[in-house]
């Protein structure tokens, strides 16, 4: 009897977690769900890259399940379950909304699957960080004890999310074409400066007492910015945005996209 009551309580509390997960998925994926380039990319992005995107999202989501996760439990089994549930939430959210907007391309199975899959990853990411964002009790999760690689991982996740949000848009390419080499260089300096200021000011738990600004710069800002560049390049590659570009044009695109990515990397510490 007691076990049954306990079980029902546990199911009910999980239902709350699930509700928050859907809320987070909506919050984080809506900008992309309402971006027309994303609808087209689901169909037009090279099939291998669409697949690489979906597969590449899995370890990132697992990492986020470990550091944020939308239920309070941890461990290999539970992180895996959280990741899979987040994916279910992501797929359901993006499929339902794309169908509601009537932008799904039913012409072939691959096209609709591609469209939903591209959107499901950011939605799943939102589902995983939902507990932090929407539950009010901000002190849950393990990231306060996050190791150095863990901190870098969170920066990478933030960079990937912001890069993913902006990489599909035509404006990124236009800015990269319009900006001068000096402008791109200035943007690079501004990105690094902001990343450093936000990271250092926001403070990595247990780090800021020991870290001097210079050490923090070498330990977090520089590798963090390198991750931003990598995240930007990965997203541009996924969306076939810089195919056929020369080295200079690719660099300009990467640096322009790394600016929002750097802000995302810095904010990841504040958000997650």
């Amino acid at each position, binding site marked *: 009897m007691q076990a049954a009551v*306990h*079980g029902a*309580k*546990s*199911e009910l*509390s*999980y*239902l709350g977690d*699930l509700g928050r997960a859907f809320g987070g998925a909506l919050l984080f994926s809506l900008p992309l769900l309402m971006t027309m380039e994303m609808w*087209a990319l689901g*169909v*037009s*992005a090279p*099939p*291998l890259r*669409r*697949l690489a995107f*979906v*597969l590449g999202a*899995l370890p990132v989501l697992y990492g986020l399940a470990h550091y944020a996760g939308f*239920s*309070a*439990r941890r461990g290999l*089994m*539970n992180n*895996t*379950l*959280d*990741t*899979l*549930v*987040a*994916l*279910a*939430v992501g*797929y*359901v959210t993006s499929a339902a909304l794309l169908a509601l907007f009537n932008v799904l*391309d039913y*012409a*072939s*199975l*691959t*096209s609709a*699957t*591609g469209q*939903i*899959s591209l959107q*499901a990853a950011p939605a799943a990411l939102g589902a995983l960080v939902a507990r932090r964002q929407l539950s009010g*009790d901000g*002190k*849950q999760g393990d990231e306060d004890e996050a190791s150095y690689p863990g901190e870098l991982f969170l920066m990478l996740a933030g960079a990937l999310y912001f890069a993913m949000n902006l990489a599909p848009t035509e404006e990124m390419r236009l800015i990269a074409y319009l900006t001068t080499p000096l402008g791109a260089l200035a943007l690079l300096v501004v990105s690094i400066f902001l990343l450093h200021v936000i990271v250092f000011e926001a403070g990595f738990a247990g780090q800021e007492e020991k870290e001097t600004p210079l050490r923090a710069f070498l330990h977090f800002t520089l590798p963090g910015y390198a991750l931003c560049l990598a995240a930007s390049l990965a997203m541009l590659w996924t969306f*076939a945005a810089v195919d056929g570009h020369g080295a200079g044009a690719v660099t300009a695109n990467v640096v322009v996209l790394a600016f929002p990515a750097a802000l995302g990397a810095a904010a990841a510490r504040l958000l997650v």
Partner: protein
Amino acid sequence: MKNRRTSDGGTSSRLQALCAFLGLIVTLAAIVVLARSAFAHQSPPDLSVRTEAPRPVASGWAVEVRVLNKGDMTAAAVEIEGESEGERAQASLDYVPGRGEKRATLVFSSSAKPQARVRVMGWSDP
């Protein structure tokens, strides 16, 4: 928080297991569909058109055209042209997905029912 962790720690929610299973199935299905199209031999776009019976509209006759892509790869910026008794009509489609079809409409201003000859003029890679 501490209570939750201990109270939840032992028993895993059945709802969680169910949702996780759903996630596994959906994700695997998506991966399989995408992998099949990624690793299968990709034949280039192969477009053909089928016209439907013209129907009268305010400005003349509308001829609905179905553009079928028998290839595996997507064709972008597809231009369609129709000709009927010297009059030309054009339409363009953003995409025709591989193994899929899209619709377009050509309009002819003639008063007589048009006998349209329709063709795909060209397309580009997405």
